[in-house]
């Protein structure tokens, strides 16, 4: 048809038309949202709160792991020998223990050396000299082979060390760190569970909002179908609306998390100073913030995609 040909000429190239359509819809869907600021804001706020909650917990957990991360790989057993054990006997014991398969490294701090260091560092030099006798025992420091999956191995080694007749006391100082880590792991799992549940809530919120939106624009959808709008064309504004909800919700969640951490920061700093620690609360890093937004976008898009898939096909012109 000659007429159709002249139509084609005025049209943009298919790829360009596709791009123009997407851009047009992206902006138009934002426009539609800003025309109903109150309801759009409420949807975004719900998404933001649902995401800020696990994000905030994640930040706190991260900080808690940071506090203890220095001790993670330095599990060390101090073996205090009996006071009357000579350096010779201590060396013999060391050679014997070195053969244990659970012993990674072993070294000795002999009592003279320890005393010298202690005098230098502590500043109690004169007081200690007046004691006459060296009150410190020889100490063996053992770095055990750490197998995170088999904490009982270290316990077993500890038991064996304590059985040696030259040994006064063998102790693993880092038990509490292990316990803390175990607790942190539980907390981490709990956060994932909560985050998943809240993520589903976000999906439902977006899905329901888009569903109402589809119902409100029923007439428009019918007319668009009648004059040749493809399903993709009709779907697009709803998907973009979901995307905008996601972006808005993610940004707002980031803001909420940062604000909450900011509120806690002063008190944490105060507490840290009481422990002589320079510890500072760390908020979401830039990358983590972007991840939060990306996750939120995904939820928004996916939620609207579900709603569109379920409800758009129900509307056919009649």
């Amino acid at each position, binding site marked *: *048809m000659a*007429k*159709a040909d*002249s*139509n084609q000429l*005025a*049209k*943009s190239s*298919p790829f*360009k*038309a*596709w791009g*123009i*359509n997407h851009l*047009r819809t992206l902006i138009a869907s934002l426009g539609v949202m800003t025309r109903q600021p109150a309801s759009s804001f409420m949807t975004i706020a719900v998404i933001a709160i649902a995401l800020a909650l696990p994000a905030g917990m994640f930040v706190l957990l991260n900080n808690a792991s940071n506090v203890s991360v220095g001790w993670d790989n330095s599990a060390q057993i101090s073996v205090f020998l009996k006071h009357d054990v000579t350096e010779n006997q201590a060396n013999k014991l060391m050679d014997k223990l070195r053969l244990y398969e659970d012993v990674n490294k072993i070294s000795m701090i002999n009592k003279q050396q320890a005393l010298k260091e202690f005098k230098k560092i502590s500043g109690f030099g004169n007081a200690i000299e007046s004691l006459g006798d060296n009150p410190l025992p020889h100490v063996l420091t053992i770095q055990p082979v750490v197998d995170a999956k088999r904490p009982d191995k270290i316990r077993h080694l500890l038991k064996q060390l304590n059985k040696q007749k030259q040994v006064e006391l063998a102790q693993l100082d880092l038990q509490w760190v292990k316990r803390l880590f175990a607790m942190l792991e539980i907390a981490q799992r709990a956060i994932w569970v909560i985050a998943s549940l809240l993520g589903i809530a976000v999906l439902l919120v977006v899905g329901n909002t888009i569903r109402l939106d589809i119902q409100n624009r029923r*007439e*428009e959808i*019918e*007319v*668009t*179908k*009648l*004059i*040749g*709008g*493809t*399903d993709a*064309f009709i779907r697009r504004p709803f998907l973009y609306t979901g995307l905008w909800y996601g972006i808005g919700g993610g940004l707002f969640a980031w803001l909420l998390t940062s604000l909450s951490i900011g509120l806690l920061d002063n008190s944490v700093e105060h507490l840290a100073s009481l422990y002589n620690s320079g510890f500072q609360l760390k908020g979401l890093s830039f990358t983590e913030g972007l991840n939060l937004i990306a996750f939120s976008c995904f939820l928004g898009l996916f939620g609207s995609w579900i709603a569109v898939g379920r409800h758009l096909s129900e509307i*056919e*012109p*009649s």
Partner: protein
Amino acid sequence: MIRFDNVSKRYPGGHEALSNVSFHLPRGEMAYLTGHSGAGKSTLLKLIALIERPSRGNLVLDGVNLSSVSNRKIPYIRRNIGIIFQNHHLLYDRTVFDNVALPLIIAGYQHKEIGKRVRASLDQVGLLNKEKSAPITLSGGEQQRVGIARAIVHKPGLLLADEPTGNLDPELSKEIMQLFARFNDVGVTVLIASHDLKLIKEMGSPVVSLNKGLLSHNDLDLTNHG
């Protein structure tokens, strides 16, 4: 352009809206479709616009057999049809301009081209000064003309109108029909469903009549044979 070949349409529940309808509307022709309400006029138009599918028989539009066309292809077929409804089907949340521009936006026209074509189209229906108005502020006749502008803006090869003058007074109705005749003069195939027999007689185009789903009168075949 449109060829019905023993087409029947039976709705779920058993009601047969069309029975063995056959006629041929050649390209560039204009015809009226008449009949009492319930005779099957709307059903016939819906079959052409692919809103409904025939239960039996073949319906060929512009060389495409509509009985076997896939759902995915429907939008592209509809883009070559301009449809005008009795109740206008305008979108009241946007201006006259945006209403008329919709088919062009769907087809992916450039921004500048859209402005040009929408104004040309509004000019043809005599509403050039109303492009920024909200449809709700227009009279019934004006709204119908906005609907017509929207149906012709992308220069479709076929215009379908379902009772386009249903709510209008005789004078306005005649104007609208003359508008359709003008489109037909530039080569557009036009099929208008109407029960306004007096007006149709005045216009003098071929008439196809339906009665209880059966073809009762067909000028088109006479013109074809003659």
